C-alpha cells in the first residue's frame, strides 16, 4: 500500500519513491539537479551509514549519499517497498 512519506530523509532503506520537489537553494539545488534529483525521477533509499547519517540513495543508475539534513530538502512521493 502507498504510504505518504514527505521527505527523502524520511525514507527507510528499501523504500522507493519519486522526487516531487526541491527545497534546496543556490548551488546545492543545481548539484542535486545535476545528480538527477528532478521531479518525477525514481529514487531508492539503499542504506544508512553505520552512524545513522548520511544515507545512500540510488538515483539514475548511480549511488549518492546525502546527509539527512540535506535530504530533508527534497520531497518525495513514496511508492511501495521494493
Amino acid at each position, binding site marked *: 500500500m502507498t504510504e505518504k512519506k514527505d521527505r527523502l530523509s524520511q525514507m527507510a532503506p528499501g523504500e522507493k519513491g519519486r522526487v516531487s520537489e526541491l527545497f534546496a537553494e543556490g548551488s546545492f539545488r543545481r548539484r542535486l539537479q545535476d545528480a538527477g534529483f528532478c*521531479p518525477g525521477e525514481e529514487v531508492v533509499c539503499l542504506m544508512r551509514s553505520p552512524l545513522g547519517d548520511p544515507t545512500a540513495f540510488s538515483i539514475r543508475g548511480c549511488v549518492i549519499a546525502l546527509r539527512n539534513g540535506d535530504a530533508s530538502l527534497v520531497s518525495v512521493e513514496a511508492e511501495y517497498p521494493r
Partner: protein
Amino acid sequence: MKDYVAVTLAGVPNVGKSTVFNALTGLRRHTGNWTGKTVDCAVGYFDRGGKHFSVSDIPGAYSLFTHSPEEDEAKRYILEENSDVTVVICDASSVERCLVPFFQIGEATDRVAVFVNLCDEAKKNGISVDLRMLEDRLGVPVVGGSARWGDGIDKLVSVCADIADGKISPSPAKADYGDAENVIARLIETGMSRWEAVRSICDAPENFGYPDAKALRDRVAESTAAACKAAARGTVTREKSDRPSRNEKIDRILTGRLTAFPIMALLLIGIFFLTVKGANYPSEGLWTVFSFVLRHLKSALEAACLPPSLISFLCDGVAGTTGWIVSVMLPPMAIFFPLFTVAEDLGYLPRVAFDLDRCFKGCGGCGKQALCMCMGLGCNAVGVSGCRIIDSKRERLIATVTNSFIPCNGRFPTVLTLCALFFTGSGRSSGLVSAAVLTLAVILSVTVTLLTSLVLSKTVLKGRPSFFTLELPPYRTPNIIETVKRSVLDRTLFVLARAVSVAAPAGAVIWLLSNISIGDTVILSAITDLFDPVGRIMGLDGVILTAFLLSLPANEITLPVMIMAYTASGTLSDQSDVLFIGEVMRQNGWNTLTAVCTLIFTLFHWPCSTTLLTIKKETGSIPVTVFSALLPTAIGAGLCAAVTAISELASQVLHRIF
C-alpha cells in the same frame, strides 16, 4: 595551422577519463575508483596513423555550472582551451547521468564525440547500450569500448582525427529550453554561442524578462535532465532482476551498522601486518648487501691512499645515510603503497568517507575529508591537493591544515622501527603487534584530526557544515598484478630518487657538522646542546629535535639522521644488523618514554617541505602555510610535554609509595 590534433577528455567524475587518457597516451596517470581522484589537468601526446595528437585529461565535472575548484578547472579547460575535439566519456552502466556535460559542451562547440566506457562491466551486469541508436539521438559519433583493455581506443582515435579534419561534422543534439528558446535565438544572433546565451540568461534572468529566477534556472536544469533521459530511453536496456545486486550485498557488509568499523580496523591492521612482515626480510637483505659493499668500498679507498677524513665523509656520511634510507625505508613503502592502491581501485575509499561522515559533520568538517586523509596515508602532499574535492572553502581549509596529522608513508618506517625496538621485540607475534600499534597510531591521528577540526570550526574557521554529496561507485575488480607491479616500481623509483636527492646531501651535512669544530666545540653538539633543554621538556633530547629539523625536506630521513648524529664520532658500518640502532639509542639514554615521545612527535610535527609547498600552492596564502606548520608542531610538543610530565609525576608517586 596547428600540426597536431588537440583532444580534451571530459565527463562526469569516475567514468574512467584517466584510464582512457592512459590507454591513448601509454602514460601511467594515477587512476582510482572514486570520485575526485583526478584533481588537476594533464596533457599527453601520441602519434597514430601519421598524425600527432595531444590529449588533455581533466577532472570530472557533473555539470559546467560549477561548484568546486576542481570543476572550475574542468570548465576552464573545456570552454577556453582551444581543443579540436572534446570527447565526452560515459559510463555504460549509467549513460543517462553521464550525458549532462554532453548537452552543455554541445552548446559551446560542435566538435564533440562520445566514448561509452566500461562496456564490459555493464554487460556483466546485464546492461547493454545501443551505440548506433545513441549516435542518432546525440548527433555525434559514439564509440563504445573498455579503456582498461584498450578496447575501442583505436576507433576513438580515428573518429577524433576525422572530426578534426572535417570529414565528420557532428551536430550535437540540444536540450530544449521551452519558451527561453526565443531569447536564446536572439542572443545567438548577436554573436554569442548557445552556451554563452544560456549562461547569460541563467546569470540574470530578470534582464531577459524572467522575473522568477529560480523557476527559469530550474527549467534549464530540468530540460537538460529531460534531454539526457530522452537520449538514454530505449538505447540502454537492463535485464530486470529482483535480487539485490552484488554491490548492495558487499555494501551491506562493508557499511553495515555492526560490521563497518571492525572491518575498517581489520583492513588497516591487515595492510600494516603485510607491510611489517613483508618488509623485514628485504630490509635485512639490503642492509647486509649494503654494509658489505660499504666495507669493501672503504678498504678500496684506503688502498688508494685517500685522506681518512674524505673516506669517512663519503662512506659514513653520504653513503651511510643513503644506504640506510634504501634498506630501512624502501621495503615498507614499496609494500604498503601497492596494497593501498588495490583498496583504492576496489572502490573502498568512498565507503570510508560514508561511514565516517557523521564524525566529521559533528566536528564541522566534510566527510570527504576522510578521502583526503586516506590519500595522506600515502603522501601528505597528495592528500593536500586532494582537498580540492571539498566544495566549501571553510571545510577545505580545515582538511588542508589537518592533513599532516595522518602519518604518511615516509613516516611509517620510523614508527615501525621504534615499535619493533621498544615495544614489540622481534618474537613470533611481533608482526601482528606492530601492525596493531601502527593502527592505534592511525586511530590516534584520526582522533586528533577530528578534535582539531572541531576546535578550528568553533574558532578561526567558524561556520556550519555545508551541503554534502558523495558518490559511492560500484566496486570494481582491480587488475591486481598490473597495479602491484606498477606501484611497486613507482614507489621504488620514487624512494630511490629521494634517497639520492635528499638523504645523500643530508648525510653530507650531518657528517660535516659533526666533524668540524669551532674552537673546542663540534658544531653538531653545539646545535644539539642548544635544543637539548627544549627537547628534555618534551621527553626527547637535542639530537632527536635536530634530526626532526634536518628532515624537513623528507620525513624518511629522521631516523638515519638521528643515528648519524649519535654515532658521528664512531662509525656506522661495522654493524650487520639493521636493529643495532636500538643499542645506539639505549647508550644515548633512550628509554620507553623517549620512544613514546618520539613516536608522538613523528605523528605530530611540521609537514615536510613538499607538503608545505603544496599547501602554499593550493591555498595561495603564506599565513595558512605557516599556520599548517605551527599547528601540528604545537600539538605534538604539547602532547609530548604532557606525557613526560605525567610519567614523571607517576614515577615520583610510585617512588613515595614504595
